[in-house]
């Protein structure tokens, strides 16, 4: 038996621990040694997303819809993937503009509109109240159930209990007191609560630990692991159905819409905005949260299905509410301590949510709802107060208490009609209404104040009509008739089948219509007019957040005059005079002046003051307050557009410059490359001339020497005379041949060669060449074999040129063959589309390394044993040029000492070649 006082004192002890952590965290923060400047703590604190709704409700939803609980966690996991773009931008914008809440964010974006800030606040409060009531319900239920340990008794309907005996009321009051202690001990210009974040990170660990403990207990102690549980579930038809997704449109629609809804909620729930944006210390912490937070969600969800199935198997008669399985399973097994741990886990989840949510909401209520009204209320004479920081704190404290009591009222009124998950989703759908104004606001400069208001109002109205009112009706506050018959008995106005849209669950249905109305109104109304001066300025700050650094652009949209003596007291009234002096002094030092009096009250200082104030009372109110002491000269829209145009022109100009310099660089690189090519060509030309000179000088040497010999000594004997004259003639021929070939080569290379193209019978050409070279063969007694395919198609080529090629190949073959034993084989054959000629010899062969070289000009590969081969070194290069001119290929296959085969191909005449020629000749 667990006594009430035991449970109560454990509860208070736990809350005390949380408070101690928070207190320590604040102390450390004041000392400048933050304990939350740590990405893991940031990621853990984000798990404030997991409330009692996760802790108890997931199992409840899994027990009725199987894996239908998953989209709520799938959405945030998907969204985490986008954080690096969306969340980072929101964080950067918020830091640059000292945004303190989601209402502040929206109102700042649309020209610091007080109306918009108030509207967002109202939507947030109304939307979140059911969610808070859900925490109260869960905590109070778990308290009641635990109280009856070891019996398992479902809590009676809350309404049936007298008010003063209702544990939920006391829980609400205790939480209110606790939150006030946590969040409003003092006023901070940055609206950050380091201690609270530390406590939240701790409670995230506690609830995870408690849930996993139950999961392990159920899975591995009650049953034999995951396999065992699911095997047992297979045997029960009702449970088997839980393991599958219905293959219906509504089922998928529900999955998609719940995933989408939770994607938006993880960004825009006031407490998530508070933790992930306002409390963020360092935007780099986001990088770890992107994977650690989804991992947390995975861990806390692993045991949901086993616990749900285990509960359904353990309590088959349906007497126990599935929402309580997490607690009732350990109780049924007499696990007293585990049950207590679960209760603490649930309390932890509920407390964490309530604290952060109400702090966030109270900031919004104070800054965006109450203060603007009070400041306008001239008879209150607030303008004359010297220190308003106390007033601000008490407004927040009252707001916290009021919000929690509202939650309690909703709990009394509607709580029992819905399961935990149902209530949570209603809140999600309300918060989703912020998405168009925020997402649109950070990516689209065209959104206007009226557009944002219209979208929010339309979406929120549809939400009230399709979700909130039906939830009231179901709990008996309203007649059910308008659900069944439609408003005024008009069928098309049935709140859950609006305009005849059926087949969707209530949440997807509401989400569809509210988003349609919201986005439609936001875009349509925004497009009706051009954003004004202030809106344009803010839009630029928000949309181009990644482009500007803090403060670079803000002061450019403001012109006016101010006095430091006016600004300082103004800030002092809200932050306290001491804090204001410190802030101004810090600013002065950053500017390089020693005292506040030396500060120049320029646009930058005015904006600094406004930002300071915005931290305390929100952007919209801060603007009003600063405007009251500063003489502003309004800027015309044209002037603002000019400033913006100027900026964009400068940007465009610098882009052009960059472009030009890139082009220049590219051109320089090209020039350099071209120059290198030219140099290379020059070197090649140089080499060519040097080589030609060498080749010309060599025969000239012999000719001159013998001519001089003969000239000097006319009486040279006859045999010598004949020998010398023969050499002179031979060398002269060599000289002539060389000159001809150099000219030939030059003509072919420059494209000036004359080609007499005709249809050629290759066989005939080969026979003719062989006939012409027969004496060469005979002189060295080299045998000749020929295998010439007859009747091949003709090729288009220059007959004389082909003879030149054949002569070159044949004389080369003869040249490198041994006398007597030499053998040359000539083959003509057809390959696919081409004629192929091979000239094979059994001569000295060509080393692999030299095979490419021999086709270069003047690169003979000599028989090194005796002497340089005869010839000019131009035969093969010219032959290759000729063959390639007619679309063929010339190559060699050989290895040293084993002869060589020179082969070339020429395409058969198909008619195309002739057309091509005609085209070229034209």
């Amino acid at each position: 038996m667990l006594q009430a006082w035991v449970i109560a004192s454990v509860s208070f002890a736990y809350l005390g621990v949380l408070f101690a952590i928070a207190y320590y965290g604040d102390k450390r923060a004041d000392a400048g040694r933050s304990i939350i400047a740590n990405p893991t703590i940031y990621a853990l604190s984000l798990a404030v997303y997991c409330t009692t709704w996760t802790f108890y409700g997931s199992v409840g939803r899994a027990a009725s819809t199987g894996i239908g609980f998953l989209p709520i966690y799938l959405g945030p996991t998907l969204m985490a993937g986008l954080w690096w773009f969306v969340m980072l931008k929101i964080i950067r914008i918020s830091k640059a503009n000292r945004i303190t809440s989601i209402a502040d964010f929206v109102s700042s974006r649309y020209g610091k509109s007080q109306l918009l800030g108030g509207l967002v606040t109202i939507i947030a409060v109304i939307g979140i109240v059911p969610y808070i009531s859900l925490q109260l319900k869960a905590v109070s239920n778990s308290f009641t159930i635990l109280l009856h340990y070891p019996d398992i008794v479902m809590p009676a309907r809350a309404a049936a209990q007298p008010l003063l005996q209702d544990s939920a009321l006391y829980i609400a009051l205790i939480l209110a007191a606790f939150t006030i202690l946590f969040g409003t001990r003092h006023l901070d210009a940055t609206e950050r609560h380091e201690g609270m974040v530390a406590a939240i990170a701790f409670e995230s660990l506690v609830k995870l630990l408690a849930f996993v403990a139950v999961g392990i207990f159920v899975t591995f102690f009650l049953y034999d692991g995951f396999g065992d549980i699911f095997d047992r579930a297979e045997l029960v038809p009702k449970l088997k159905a839980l393991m599958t997704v219905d293959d219906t449109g509504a089922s998928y629609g529900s999955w998609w819409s719940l995933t989408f809804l939770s994607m938006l909620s993880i960004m825009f729930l006031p407490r998530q905005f508070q933790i992930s944006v306002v409390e963020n210390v360092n935007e780099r912490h986001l990088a770890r949260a992107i994977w650690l937070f989804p991992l947390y969600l995975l861990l806390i969800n692993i045991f949901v299905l086993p616990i749900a199935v285990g509960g359904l198997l353990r309590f088959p008669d349906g007497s126990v509410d599935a929402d309580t399985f997490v607690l009732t399973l350990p109780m049924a097994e007499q696990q007293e301590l585990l049950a207590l741990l679960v209760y603490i886990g649930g309390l932890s989840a509920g407390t964490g949510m309530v604290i952060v949510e109400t702090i966030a909401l109270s900031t919004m209520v104070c800054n965006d709802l109450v203060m603007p009204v009070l400041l306008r209320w001239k008879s209150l004479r607030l303008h004359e107060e010297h220190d308003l920081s106390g007033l601000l704190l008490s407004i927040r404290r009252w707001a916290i208490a009021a919000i929690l009591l509202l939650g309690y009222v909703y709990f009394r009124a509607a709580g029992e009609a819905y399961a935990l998950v149902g209530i949570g989703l209603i809140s999600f759908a309300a918060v989703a209404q912020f998405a168009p104004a925020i997402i649109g606001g950070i990516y689209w400069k065209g959104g206007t104040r009226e557009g944002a208001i219209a979208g929010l109002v339309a979406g929120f109205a549809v939400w009230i009509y399709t979700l909130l009112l039906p939830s009231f009706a179901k709990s008996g506050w309203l007649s059910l008739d308008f659900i069944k018959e439609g408003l005024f008995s008009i069928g098309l106005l049935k709140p859950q089948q609006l305009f005849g849209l059926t087949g969707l669950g209530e949440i997807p249905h509401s989400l569809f219509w509210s988003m349609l109305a919201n986005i439609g109104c936001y875009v349509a109304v925004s497009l009706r007019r051009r954003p004004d001066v202030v809106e344009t300025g803010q839009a630029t700050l928000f949309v181009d957040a990644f482009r500007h650094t803090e403060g670079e652009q803000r002061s450019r949209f403001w012109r006016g005059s101010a006095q430091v003596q006016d600004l300082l007291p103004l800030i002092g009234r809200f932050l306290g005079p001491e804090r204001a002096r410190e802030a101004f002094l810090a600013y002065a030092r950053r500017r390089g002046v020693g005292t506040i009096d030396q500060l120049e009250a320029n646009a930058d200082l005015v904006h600094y003051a406004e930002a300071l104030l915005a931290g305390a009372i929100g952007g919209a109110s801060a603007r009003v307050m600063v405007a009251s002491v500063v003489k502003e000269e309004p800027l015309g829209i044209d002037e603002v557009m000019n400033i913006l145009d100027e900026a964009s022109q400068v940007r465009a100009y610098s882009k052009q410059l960059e472009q030009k310099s890139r082009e220049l660089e590219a051109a320089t690189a090209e020039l350099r490359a071209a120059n290198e090519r030219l140099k290379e060509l020059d070197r090649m030309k140089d080499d060519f001339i040097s080589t030609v000179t060498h080749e010309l000088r060599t025969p000239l040497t012999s000719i001159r020497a013998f001519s001089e010999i003969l000239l000097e000594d006319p009486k040279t004997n006859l045999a010598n005379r004949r020998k010398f004259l023969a050499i002179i003639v031979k060398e002269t021929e060599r000289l002539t041949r060389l000159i001809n070939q150099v000219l030939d080569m030059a003509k072919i290379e420059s494209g000036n060669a004359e080609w007499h193209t005709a249809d050629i019978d290759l066989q005939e050409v080969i026979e003719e060449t062989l006939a012409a070279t027969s004496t060469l063969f005979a002189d060295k007694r080299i045998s000749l074999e020929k295998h010439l395919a007859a009747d091949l198609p003709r090729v288009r080529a220059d007959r004389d040129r082909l003879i030149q090629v054949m002569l070159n190949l044949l004389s080369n073959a003869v040249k490198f063959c041994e006398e007597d034993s030499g053998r040359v084989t000539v083959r003509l054959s057809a390959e696919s589309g081409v004629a192929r000629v091979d000239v094979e010899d059994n001569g000295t062969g060509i080393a692999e390394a030299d095979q490419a070289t021999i086709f270069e000009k003047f690169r003979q590969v000599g028989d090194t044993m005796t002497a340089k081969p005869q010839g000019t070194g131009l035969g093969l290069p010219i032959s290759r040029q000729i063959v390639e001119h007619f679309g063929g290929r010339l190559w060699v296959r050989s290895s040293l000492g084993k002869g060589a085969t020179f082969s070339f191909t020429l395409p058969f005449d198909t008619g195309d070649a002739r057309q091509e020629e005609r085209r070229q000749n034209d």
Partner: protein
Amino acid sequence: MTKRILIVDDEPNIVVSLEFLMKREGFEVAVAMDGEAALKSVEEKTPDLVLLDIMLPKKNGFEVCQTIRANPELQAVKIVMLTAKGRDTEVAKGTALGADAYMTKPFSTKDLIAQVRQILGES
């Protein structure tokens, strides 16, 4: 005593003309057709003067010149380089490697003979 001249060139007709000229002038003549043969010939019987072509198979004239100059026993050997490449850099290279004279092809037979005689100290 008859001076010995080694003719090193891979062009047979040039060898024929040089051989005829040198013999006519009364020198003893040896012939090598590539760089390695030239070095071998120098080793077998040291010539008084080498007529050395540069573009040679196996070892070019520069290498042959360098090898001869590196051998202290062959300090007395005179070297006349003959080449069809007339660029200044090659003349400079030849002289730097220790050639005694450098003649560009085609050369005047009279000049060549005069040069050879002068180098051999016979003029």
